[in-house]
């Protein structure tokens, strides 16, 4: 029984049904197909998961189709189900199903209801291809496919040019990363003759070192990961991606797709274990991203932008964990992050729903009593991401901090200190968001306030499920579960006595952020505004997002435009291509003009010319014949 193929194909069937027949068959049909097939895929995943556990952890492998055979190597579309992909598949189908259900409420009145669910199912199909693919090739197809689905969904309301633009930005930024992914893939195939993850890992951990630098391959693949997972320097697309519908932000740009880079590095842990230089780069880039994104999030005023920068920051923490060799811990954070960030985004969606589309937290406040379910779930998820024990985020973040401090493969107190500071900022901006949105006195105008209403059950029920998972998810220690697939790094013996104190510090940091946010924002915006005036320069820098977009525009965008305009358009297209064609035509015309003068219309001239020609050819024949 081809269980894995079934898991992948169910959402594809949903895409085809909804995409082709959805608009004609009505919203009922679309909802049943759109939500039903992902739920079936989730149930199939659970079944496969039980088979995996029954098989004592031996990976399930399924070849669905042989795509091409070249020499003695065949490109198979094969699926690989070990503990890591099992966990990812459970997250993707589980959280995915929940978000589909939520969407039936959130998108209820949208004109393109069927198109929305078709795209969402298409996304699930490609994401499952990505996490279940046995080889880098299948993974890459999924990798490109989720990029496509992300583009389609960010620009879902494409009649707004800004949103269509955001979709393009996401796609193009990702292409830069994809180039790195492809190059890495070529190198691996060239050196090893295979693209299967298990074979690649085995080759790099085996006794004979492969004829390719693990660090080079690792760095190239990491460039791919920076694109997909929004790490510096390719992080610029994710905040703009918030132009899409909020459930899309929850599913694609928080819970699943953006963790694909983390998954890729974790999947190839055998390779990265042999690549200490690449790992160091990953740790530094991850940490820098975590820190800078957290500082930007502090000054954002759009509820979704705060969450977007928080996602970038959390992804940075995951890469920090990967960089110090704690692959299981990174996946643990992927897992907890999927719950609380999905919950936060969906909660934000519920708030936006209640506020009739308003996203500016300066115009909110006092929502706690009006939409209590949203508030309660949002608060739980906020506490979870801030790292308040014993919620899910506390466990995963604490493990990341511990390995950043003590891992023997690259851990250092400096990494720990900066990561902890980022955690403090995270806690601060998340509670700032909570206070400004729900707890301070209302700053809404009368009209909006009148319309505020709790979301329908289809949305709140999903929020409750996710809030419960954010609360208790941390007790399932993913890294222990993944230990057979991904060994944990050794922590320095001499530092073991510091483990408990560090946990206390992490807890204190989380509460410090809470206290700080309470102190500044408990009464509204007044204290925050005073702080902003005091640090006007810093505020400008942060709300300008360190001017990275402007820098790219100046360094890449403008020269590219200039070259396109001046060189390729004027010189290449107009001068070279148009010029040569027009020149040929003009030459032919001029020559014809000259030659046509021979046609005088005078018969005698013709006769003379004919005779001259005859005489000339006769003379020539006489001389040479």
């Amino acid at each position, binding site marked *: 029984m081809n269980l894995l193929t079934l898991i992948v194909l169910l959402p594809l069937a949903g895409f085809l049904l909804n995409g082709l027949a959805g608009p004609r068959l009505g919203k009922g049909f679309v909802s049943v197909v759109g939500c039903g097939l992902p739920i079936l895929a989730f149930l199939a995943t659970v079944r496969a998961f039980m088979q995996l556990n029954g098989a004592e952890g031996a990976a399930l492998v399924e070849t669905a189709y042989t795509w091409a055979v070249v020499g003695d190597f065949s490109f198979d579309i094969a699926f690989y189900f070990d503990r890591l992909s099992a966990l990812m598949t459970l997250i993707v189908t589980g959280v995915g199903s929940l978000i589909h259900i939520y969407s039936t409420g959130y998108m209820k009145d949208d004109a393109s209801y069927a198109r929305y669910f078709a795209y969402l199912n298409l996304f699930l199909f490609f994401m499952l291809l990505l996490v279940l693919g046995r080889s880098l090739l299948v993974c890459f197809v999924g990798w490109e496919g989720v990029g496509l689905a992300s583009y389609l969904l960010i620009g879902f309301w494409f009649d707004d040019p800004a949103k269509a633009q955001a979709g393009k930005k996401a796609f193009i930024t990702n292409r830069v990363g994809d180039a790195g992914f492809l190059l890495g893939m070529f190198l691996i195939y060239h050196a090893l003759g295979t693209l299967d993850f298990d074979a690649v890992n085995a080759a790099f951990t085996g006794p004979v070192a492969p004829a390719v630098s693990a660090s080079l391959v690792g760095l190239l693949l990491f460039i791919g990961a920076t694109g997909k997972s929004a790490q510096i320097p390719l992080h610029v697309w994710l905040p703009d991606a918030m132009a899409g519908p909020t459930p899309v932000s929850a599913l694609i740009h928080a819970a699943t797709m953006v963790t694909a880079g983390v998954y890729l590095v974790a999947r190839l842990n055998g390779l990265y274990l042999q690549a200490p230089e690449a790992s160091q780069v990953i740790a530094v880039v991850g940490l820098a991203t975590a820190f800078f994104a957290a500082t930007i999030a502090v000054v954002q005023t759009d509820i979704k932008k705060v969450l977007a920068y928080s996602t970038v920051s959390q992804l940075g923490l995951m890469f920090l964990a990967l960089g110090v060799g704690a692959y299981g811990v990174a996946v643990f954070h992927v897992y907890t992050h999927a719950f609380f960030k999905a919950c936060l985004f969906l909660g934000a969606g519920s708030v936006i729903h209640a506020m009739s589309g308003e996203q500016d937290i300066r115009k909110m406040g006092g929502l706690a009593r009006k939409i209590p379910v949203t508030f309660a779930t949002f608060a739980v998820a906020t506490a979870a991401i801030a790292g308040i024990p014993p919620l899910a985020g506390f466990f995963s973040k604490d493990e990341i901090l511990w390995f950043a401090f003590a891992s023997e493969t690259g851990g250092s107190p400096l990494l720990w200190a900066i990561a902890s500071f980022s955690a403090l900022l995270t806690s601060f901006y998340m509670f700032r968001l909570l206070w400004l949105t729900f707890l301070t006195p209302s700053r809404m105008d009368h009209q909006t306030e009148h319309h505020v209403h709790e979301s329908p059950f289809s949305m709140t029920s999903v929020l409750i499920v996710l809030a419960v998972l954010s609360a208790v998810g941390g007790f399932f220690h993913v890294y222990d579960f993944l230990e057979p697939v991904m060994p944990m790094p050794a922590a320095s013996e001499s530092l073991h006595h510091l483990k408990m104190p560090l946990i206390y510090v992490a807890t204190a940091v989380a509460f410090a952020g809470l206290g700080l946010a309470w102190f500044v924002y408990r009464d509204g915006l007044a204290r925050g505004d005073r702080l902003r005036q005091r640090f006007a320069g810093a505020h400008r820098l942060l709300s300008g997002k360190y001017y990275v977009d402007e820098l790219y525009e100046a360094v890449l965008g403008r020269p590219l435009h200039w070259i396109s305009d001046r060189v390729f358009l004027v010189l290449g297209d107009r001068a070279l291509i148009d010029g040569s064609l027009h020149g040929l035509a003009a030459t032919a015309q001029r020559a014809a003009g000259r030659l046509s003068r021979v046609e005088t219309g005078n018969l*005698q001239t013709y006769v003379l010319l004919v005779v001259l020609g005859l005489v000339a050819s006769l003379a020539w024949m006489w001389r040479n014949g």
Partner: protein
Amino acid sequence: MDRTQLLLALSITLFSLGFVGVMVRRNALVMLMCMELMLNGVILSLVAFAAHSATLAGAVLVFLVFVVAAAEIAIAIPIVLLLSRQKRSLDIGAYSELKG
């Protein structure tokens, strides 16, 4: 000067007279007649060479050429006739519409 040379000289004279006539006269009918003169010059040379080499093939070929020339003139005269109907003129200068 033997007979063949005389005949060849006569043929060249006929040809040249015809050529000059084609070149200098502007009347279409006269030009046609001059062309016939050129043709006859050429045929005379053919006959002269045939007699010189004592082959019958040349004499037979001459009759073929006469037949073809008669057919050709039977077409050329009506063309000239139609032309003259068009413009009431036989001056070939009047028919230069195909000038480049």
